[in-house]
């Protein structure tokens, strides 16, 4: 049943007990994201090491189980990753949300893959894709220090 796919144990767990939900110490980059239609908000904080590696990452925000779980999983996966790898993970993740394709990246560990795959149920719920992708779009804005605020309007 699709609802079970959407609200998998992992998601519910991350939704209820989000990891890294705080302002991380010594962050040097951050960005805000907002979905004005449902009110989901996220604020991503990054501590990056000379633009090479994400040393620490955290988030604050409010939203549905999917958006909170997605942000929480994001922080777990991205922490410690090189920028280039982080971007590849992002691309793969968005692709999965869009067309349900599997991860190409072999460099991820099995449990990392499992937690990311837990969000794949979203693809059957088109209106919820934005919930799952908001934190990720916001993360890349923070990393690349884009000035605009992430805003997942209608589009």
């Amino acid at each position, binding site marked *: 049943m699709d*609802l*079970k796919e959407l609200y998998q144990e992992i998601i519910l767990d991350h939704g209820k007990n989000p990891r890294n939900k705080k302002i991380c110490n010594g962050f040097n980059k951050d960005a805000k994201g907002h979905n004005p239609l449902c009110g*989901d908000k996220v604020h991503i904080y990054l501590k990056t090491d000379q633009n090479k590696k994400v040393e620490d990452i955290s988030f604050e925000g409010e939203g549905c189980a999917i958006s909170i779980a997605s942000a929480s999983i994001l922080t777990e996966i991205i922490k410690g990753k090189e920028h280039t790898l982080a971007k590849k993970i992002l691309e793969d993740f968005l692709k999965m949300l869009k067309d349900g394709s599997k991860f190409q990246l072999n460099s991820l560990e099995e449990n990392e893959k499992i937690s990311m795959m837990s969000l794949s149920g979203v693809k059957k719920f088109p209106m919820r894709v934005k919930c799952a992708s908001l934190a990720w779009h916001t993360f890349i804005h923070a990393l690349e220090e884009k000035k605009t605020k992430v805003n997942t309007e209608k589009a």
Partner: protein
Amino acid sequence: MDIKSIKSQFPIFKKKINGNPLVYLDSANSSQKPKAVINRMSHFYENEFSNVGRSVHTLAVTATNRFEETRDIIKDFINAKYREEIVFTKGATESINLIANSYGDKFMNEGDEIILTELEHHSNYVPWHYLRSKKKAVIKFAKVNENLEIKVDEIKRLISNKTKMIALTHISNVTGGISPLKEIIDLANSKKIPVLIDGTQGAPHLKLDMQKIGCDFYVISCHKMYGPNGLGILYGKKKWLDLLPPYQGGGGMIDEVKKNTISFAETPTKFEAGTMQTAEVVAMSEAIKFVKTIGLDRISDHENKVLNYAIEKLKKNNSVKLIGNPENKASVISFTIKGIHPHDIATILDEDGVAIRAGHHCCQILHEKLGVPATARASLGVYNTKEDIDVLDSAIKKCRKVFNI
């Protein structure tokens, strides 16, 4: 009242949603349309279509007649005094923009005050916000009480000799609370302050009588009262509409156009720039006929029964928290469930064919006050029954199962 037979006039209820019958509880967002409205539109396009008012050929004559007849039908429906008080717009949003612009340009100055309420939909705030920026005017928000009601005393408290407009909703699209229009308008009239009523949620549920209500402006969105998309009605007292400058400029609203000067037509024509939504206007006459045939009193009655049933039912569910507790209430219930975000509720309910809305319902001011970014909302139309509420209730119970709480 035979709801089954009323419901059968709405083709969409033949549809299954995720294998279940559609339980449509999103009428405050937009109502479904009866067959007669849909057919009137097709019939018009197939047999009578022409632009109105501009040609003398037979089709144009028919179209113009149907169009203007609808104006009369609406005048009667809301008991306006003159047919010229009925202006067709794109929707409630455009109607409010029109008044905020047109009235604002002519009558507002720096420091003048507009009174709104914390219940207002963005459509009844953003246009006044523009005016605030343009004219350095001031917006004062009437505060809701602990039941999320607006009381006349709060409005009284805010009125000053700088108050140039009071704009408030007839029925809140979040709490369903009915504003005490009579008291507020009497007070405003006594101080010669014009009042705009956002009747978007009022018109589909309450019998209207403009001459009794006594407001200066009343706005309606046709798509929320069983009518077509893309059409709104602006009622304005003739004395105002005569005074106000036009809003959009274009064809059909002019008197004489020269290279240096332009003069404008009379009301309502001066406010109806460009080609109008002829088919939609004509079809609207069927929506009104539909409502009149049942009778708004009976619609209110029926909806109130279903509403009260829903309130009782949801109150019994400990995890559900109802938003607001207004004494006079119609057609809308908003709620939250502890530990489950409204968005997730809406998704889970949808699996059972139950359509509700989750979000801030274009009322961020109120939601900020409530301290929640979003709520879930079930809203009623004439086609809803107690059985719909039963399905809603058990779908809500399912939410906790899905979330293991």
